[in-house]
Structure formats: C-alpha cells, structure tokens
C-alpha cells in the first residue's frame, strides 16, 4: 500500500462500552472509487466521521496524502481537502440552498477588517454548481425545508462535489433516491473520478458497488474484515464477507 491517498492504520473508537471501531486498517488509492460495505451498525459511518474530523479515534493513525492527520474539527478536514456527504446529509433546513452550499465557506467582500457576505456571487456560483451537476434541484433561494428527500440528497452531494476537494466521501448517497435520481448520482460519482477526485462510497446496494467501485472494503462489527479489487471479486464473495460466512 505505497501509493495511497488515505490510509487508516489500526483505528479504534469506543462510545462508552460500545466498541464502534476495532483496529480498522484500510487504504484508498488516489483517483479511484473505493467502496465500503457492511451490515447496519458495522461502524462505517463512524469511520467516516473519524476521517472527516467529527470524532477523534481513541487509537491508531490516519494518514492523508502522506501526512499523518489529527483533525480537531470538521473544518480542519475540509481545509485539508476532504469533503463528506453525511448519511444524515448535514443540511440546515431553515437556510436556503445557496446558504447550505456555502456553509462555513461563505464568500465575502472585505471593507478593511470587516467582511460582508457576497450574496450575489454565492447565488450565482450556487446556480452554476447546481446546473453543472445537472441534478434537478429547485431555485437556489428556496429554503431546504421545502425540498423533497431526493432533492436534499442532491444538494448535499453538490456541496461536497462543488469544491475542489481531493477526497469526496459519500455515506449512502442514494439510499432515499428513486431510479432516475440514483442514476444521476452514479453518473456524478463517475464524473468526479474522471475529473481526478478520489471517492469513498458507502452503500448497501451491492449491484451499485460492483458497478462503480475499483476497490471494496468490508466491515463487520467494528472490524475491517477484508478488501478486494472489484474486478477480482463478485457479489457473492462480498456478501459472504459481510455476513461472516466466509472464513477470514
């Protein structure tokens, strides 16, 4: 595992007496789509939250782009170039689409030491982001509260994809989406890869995983129980790893 953009080494994390992550080691190659699969409660989202700076591991190291990282906040992770589409989307319902897209990334115009929001610029950029990604989202000035589940997911994905990040993490991005919307998101994921981004995709949809990913890692009960090149495996093998039917 020499050439890797992100590498987790023996990452562990417990919540009280729930051991959510136990010595997880895995790595992501740059420019690839890596999938992470596993049962409900296997620890996938927890691992993602460690990488994106929400949790700090109790033990272990995370190496990003050759450097060991120790994020103190999600802000650090975003600054380092890691964007995440969280499972709960992390949108603020009472803010507008453009405000959500630029949350904590607001464009400002400064007058001396005081900086004012550049609303025009943000709205224009937001419209652009939204249309470039060709996802059917509503007016950028409407509040997220008015959006349907699928539209929200689209906004969250736009936000993660819209900034020049090195690594885009997507935690079950298509769970609530219909067929058409799912197809669009899959297109987007492939486009992100083609543009040189590295993508970490979490999904319960094995067909999707087999279709999109270059590499699959499997988690079970807080452990990483194996990794396969997608081209060298098949759905059955992954299922048996997930369920623990396969000997490790």
């Amino acid at each position: 595992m020499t050439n890797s953009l992100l590498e987790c080494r023996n990452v562990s994390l417990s919540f009280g007496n729930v051991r959510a992550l136990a010595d997880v080691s895995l790595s992501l190659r740059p420019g690839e789509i890596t999938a992470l699969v596993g049962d409900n409660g296997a620890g996938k989202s927890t691992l993602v939250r460690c990488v994106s700076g929400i949790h700090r591991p109790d033990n272990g190291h995370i190496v990003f782009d050759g450097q060991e990282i120790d994020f103190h906040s999600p802000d650090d992770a975003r600054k380092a170039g890691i964007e995440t589409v969280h499972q709960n989307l992390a949108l603020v319902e009472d803010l507008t689409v453009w405000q959500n897209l630029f949350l904590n990334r607001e464009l400002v115009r400064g007058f001396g030491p005081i900086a004012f929001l550049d609303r025009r610029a943000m709205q224009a950029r937001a419209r652009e982001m939204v249309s470039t990604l060709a996802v059917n989202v509503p007016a950028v000035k409407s509040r997220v509260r008015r959006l349907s589940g699928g539209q929200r997911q689209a906004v969250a994905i736009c936000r993660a994809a819209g900034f020049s990040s090195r690594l885009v993490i997507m935690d079950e991005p298509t769970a609530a989406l219909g067929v058409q919307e799912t197809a669009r998101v899959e297109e987007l994921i492939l486009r992100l890869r083609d543009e040189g981004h590295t993508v970490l995709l979490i999904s319960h949809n094995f067909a999707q995983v087999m279709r999109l990913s270059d590499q699959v890692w499997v988690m079970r009960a807080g452990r990483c129980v194996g990794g396969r090149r997608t081209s060298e495996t098949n759905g059955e093998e992954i299922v048996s790893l997930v369920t623990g039917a396969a000997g490790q």
Partner: protein
Amino acid sequence: MANTAIAAPEREAWTARLKDVGFWAEWAALVGLIVLVIVFQALNPTFLSAGNIASMLVAAAILIILSVGQTFVIATAGIDLSIASAMTLGAVAFGQAYSMGMGLALSCLAAIVASGLVGVVNGVIIARGKITDFIVTLGTLSAASGLALILSDGKPVTIIDAALLRLSTGGLGIFGWSFVIAAVVAVLGHVLLFHTRFGTHVLATGGAAESATAMGISTQRVKIAVYTISGVLAGLGAILLVARIGAAEPAANTAFLLNSVAAVVLGGVSLFGGRGSIIGPVIGALLLIALVNGLTLLGVSQFYQPLAVGIVVVLAALLTRFQR
C-alpha cells in the same frame, strides 16, 4: 417531472405575496402595530402627536436594544433569562464607578464590562458545560441580581450628569438620542445577522447544530458569542436606563425580561431557533410600548391594562400562526 411543482419562480410577484396569508403572518407584529395605531388614534388624537411619538420612541429604546440581543440568542435556539439582571448589574456597576469619581466614559465601560461578563459566563457554561440555556440563564438571573445587590449594598446611587441628561432628553427632532442609539444597534444587528459569515453561522447553529458542526462551524464559539452580544447590549441598555431614571438601582427589572422575549416572538422569530429577523423584534417592541402608552392615554384603568396586554399578545401570536 414530479419535482417541478416545487421549483417556484425565484421572485414571487408582490401582488401575489399580498394575497398570501403567510406573508401577513411574517409581518404579524407590523399588522398588529398598525391596527393599534389606527384604533388609538381614532379614540384619542394626541396619540399620534409629535410629542407622544417622541416619548414612545424613547420609551422603546431600551427594550429594542435588549430585544436585539435576545434575538441573537433565540436564533441559536437558546434563551437569555438573565438579560434584565445583567442590565441591573451593569447599571449598578455604572453607579459604583461613577460615585467613585471615575467619570462618564469609564463608568459606561464598567457597565458594559459587567453586563458583558454575565453574557460570557452564560455562554461559556452553556457551550462548555453543555447544559440547557434555560436553566443556566435562570441561575445567572439570580446570581447577577445578587451581585448587583452586594455591589450596591442594596442602595440606589443618584446620578446627576449633564451629558446623561442630554442623552435622555435631547435628540434629533422627534427621535430622542436613546432611540437613535437603539436604531443604530438594530441596523448593526441586522447587518451582523444577515450580511456576515458570523450571522449565517448563528442561524445554522440554531437550525441544526449537528449539521453546522459537521460543516466545521464551532457551535460552542457561536454560543459564547451570542450570549456575549446579549450581555454587552444589556450593558448598553443599562447606560440608557441610568440616563433615563437618573439613578443606578439594584432593582429587578423583570418586566424587561418578559417583554424582550415577547417582542422577539411577536416579531416572528421562532423559539426553536434557526430563523431570525431584527426588524420583526424591533416592531414587536414598539407594539408593546405603543399598547401601554395608548391604554394610558385612553385612561384605561390600571387593572384592565394587564388583561389588555395579554389579549393583544395572544392575538398577535395568532397571526404568526400562519407563518411558513
């Protein structure tokens, strides 16, 4: 497409807006204020005399300033129950500093520092201790008024200062200086809330703290900041209060607490946070002041005034029901 129904045109026409009940609801306080003004003016023509308008605006100044502070706190889904006590503490600090001969400027600073400290303490305990805003500020409500009593030894200090007197009686036309100050605070508050990154982060913290955190916003710092703003504005209110009543007293000022919250809620700001407005609470404050003023002008008996205030508050709130 199923989704097209939602993709409404970005700017709704004004005519369409006027027909929309939600539009009226957002401006409930304004509608209420206009109705009150019409009723009072019809019953007593002195109501809209320049002199009476001037005295209403001056009377509203302190409440407006406190309501702006309260708005920032409520926008983060908090509530500052200690805002009036912090003002009392600020007033007492002013009085002590002034009677020690520290001069007007330093006394004003003392007021702002003392009240601001109450805000900082609120913010730090709430953010770091992760305790509900309600109970922390209930505690500091009690603690700050206790401190005010201890500092002042329970005695008021009469402050006779020409500059303060001018502040409370002079002004620009019908706009007394204290109202001018309140208006400036309101404008600054509006700019801060809607035209800076900080303001967006305040709304995000109130709307969805977890999402804000995930986007790298330090909700703890935001919480500390809004309580500090609330405290500092309470200090400014304390200065105006001292100027107005000509004394620094350790009195409780409970009415200011309830009225500041009422003004914010009447102004259409949700107690659940995430939504804000500065103009709304300002109009809410004016509504409450105009109500009492009008009832006084009409000579409505003292005993009927609380009843009338209660009914108007509920009616105005009924209007906001149609919001969203």
